[in-house]
């Protein structure tokens, strides 16, 4: 039925089966849109956040998907600027994933902030003293850049490229893609950093507060480094998932190897920096603010296990597995290591967002707990559903993996 739109030489599931795959995701999207409508129409009383627990599931997951979406900018940087040609095999997929992550994050922020019709206020009346202003600017700019990077993929669709005007535009756009890759790197560098810096400047929250390096708190640099380190792992993990779901080999083994090598090396640097930062915070910053760091880990469920899990189990372990040639060449270790690395960045963002707000800051403060409402959960699941639908449609109709056709023609080993 839709054969004329499919890329040539890539076998795809029959149209009916494809629609069947989309149905549950579309249902989830529908429920989530209704939940989002409730939040926008009736207000944030639909959530379980309050004045004390102002960052909940939405901000935590926003920070996580933005970190994971860094795979788009970092893969682009490695390909177009560092000339790692092997990554041409995954750049299209990385761009689509980046676009999904960032557009999803912006959509959730629009619900969280509310009054989307007044979104332009943030640009017209910016609070220049807020790191969130810089984050807002960078997110919107980078989403625009990602949309531009997505455009050539659409224009290479089998039917669209028959139109000469579309074809030449795609060709010329492709030639200037390095500029967009550089702009994306610049923007990502700052907004990933500002998201981290946001916590590091909270002097009233000794659990998050960090000393400054130059003008920025150390969390500014740690967020950049962790996002750059985990981005390639997320590209690796998503490519592996797509291979499993579609039942096709999409990229050559060397591509996985390169992604793992880059991710593992950067993750090692990150774990080292994070360890130094934690030691400085435990031995200096926290005491300087008059708080014994041991008290931060006295409230269940956030024991010292959380610190161990974040830095060692989900940091050092995957870093070593990905960085060491022998372990990363073992598929049974490579893919779990990539997933562990992604879980590590999710854990870090959870600790920075939820644990920071849950811990008491004054002697009479209670330890707070927070469980997201169904509206919060459903709104976020709608973003997941939107991502699955957009990626599935892109995978079906666009050439996301240029090596797919060549690999399909090779006899199976």
């Amino acid at each position, binding site marked *: 039925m839709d054969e004329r739109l499919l890329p040539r*030489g890539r076998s795809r599931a029959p149209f009916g089966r494809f629609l069947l795959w989309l149905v549950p995701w579309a249902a989830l999207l529908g429920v989530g849109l209704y939940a989002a409508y409730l939040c926008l129409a009736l207000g944030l009383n639909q959530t379980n956040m309050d004045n004390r627990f102002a960052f909940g599931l939405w901000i935590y997951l926003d920070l996580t998907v933005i970190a994971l979406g860094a795979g788009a900018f970092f893969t682009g940087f490695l390909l177009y600027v560092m000339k790692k040609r092997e990554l041409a095999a995954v750049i299209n997929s990385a761009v689509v994933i980046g676009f999904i992550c960032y557009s999803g994050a912006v959509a959730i922020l629009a619900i969280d902030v509310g009054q989307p019709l007044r979104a332009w206020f943030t640009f017209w009346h910016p609070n*220049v003293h807020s790191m969130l202003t810089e984050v807002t600017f960078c997110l919107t700019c980078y989403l625009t850049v990602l949309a531009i990077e997505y455009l050539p993929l659409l224009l290479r669709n089998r039917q669209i490229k028959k139109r000469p*005007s579309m*074809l030449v*535009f795609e060709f010329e756009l492709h030639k200037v893609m390095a*500029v967009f890759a550089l*702009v994306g790197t*610049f923007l990502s560098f700052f907004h990933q950093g500002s998201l981290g810096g946001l916590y590091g400047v909270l002097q009233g929250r000794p659990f998050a507060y960090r000393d400054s390096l130059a003008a920025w708190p150390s969390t500014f640099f740690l967020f950049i480094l962790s996002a750059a380190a985990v981005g390639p792992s997320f590209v690796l993990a998503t490519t592996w998932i797509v291979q499993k779901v579609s039942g096709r080999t999409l990229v050559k083994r060397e591509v996985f190897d390169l992604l793992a090598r880059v991710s593992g090396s950067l993750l090692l640097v990150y774990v080292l920096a994070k360890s130094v930062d934690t030691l400085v915070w435990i031995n200096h910053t926290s005491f300087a603010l008059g708080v014994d760091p041991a008290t931060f880990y006295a409230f269940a469920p956030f024991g010292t296990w959380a610190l161990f899990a974040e830095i060692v189990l989900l940091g050092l372990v995957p870093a070593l597995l990905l960085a060491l040639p022998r372990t990363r060449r073992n598929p049974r270790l490579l893919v779990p290591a990539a997933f562990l690395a992604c879980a590590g960045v999710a854990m870090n963002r959870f600790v920075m967002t939820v644990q920071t707000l849950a811990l008491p800051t004054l002697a009479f403060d209670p330890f707070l707990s927070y469980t997201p409402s169904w509206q919060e959960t459903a709104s976020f699941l709608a973003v997941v559903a939107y991502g699955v639908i957009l990626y599935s449609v892109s995978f079906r109709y666009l050439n996301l993996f240029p090596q797919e056709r060549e690999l399909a*023609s090779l*006899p199976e080993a």
Partner: protein
Amino acid sequence: MFPWSPEFVWDAYHVAFFGALYSVLATVAATLAFAAWRAWRDAREGRAAAIAWHGDFEELPRAARPCRHQLTGEAPGRTCGNGFDCRHCVEHARLEARRWSSGPTEPTDRVGFALPLDRLYHRGHTWVRPEPDGTLTVGLDDMARRLVGTPERVELPAAGERLQVNGPAGRIRTRGREVRVLSPVDGTVVEAAGEGAAFTLRVDPGGAPDLRHLLRGAEVPAWALRELERLQGALGSSALGAALADGGELVADVGAALPGDRYDAVLGDMLLEP
């Protein structure tokens, strides 16, 4: 915008912050506008066909891009990087000068389809025959004709239309699948004749034609054998590998023996439209 905002202050921090933001926006907008302007210029200068071929050629697997001198054993392992247009290839001129024989001129019967050597061949499975009146006759070679079988529709350029080497010279729709035919020559179409896949175009090259990029002599059977190998590879399943038996003759309608999506892939593979 911001200087009119009540919160804006003319200090170094504000200027640097917004300066950076607007520099980014200006860079994005200028780059996009630059790409759009170049695209408009390309379209106006008629470069769309060359760009389309450039894109298709880049997508071809390495196995589909052997240099003609690799086929004849003169440059083992060499892959074409010029879009099969040898007219501007320095290496081609060098290798051509060293060639001592143009090879057999007798028809070969080893490849399983007709391959008359009284004409020149293009890598996109078209042939060219110079006529005594200075025009060129262009047609689909026998392998391509067997691939497309009996087409439902053949769209050919009308008399007076310009053709460019590696630009489109028509579209064929067969068994619900569509594929374009690459032009082997530059020139103006004088007339189109023939039915279905047996069509021919008479082309006026507008002077002495430059046909250096076309295969001739000993290159033709070598290329045909390689194309047969590629066809075998394209027909084979990923589980079985190449499954076509050696020898024999290529069936008259390849599409009749293949499921639709595989046939589509084979058409694209062999007629160089990935």
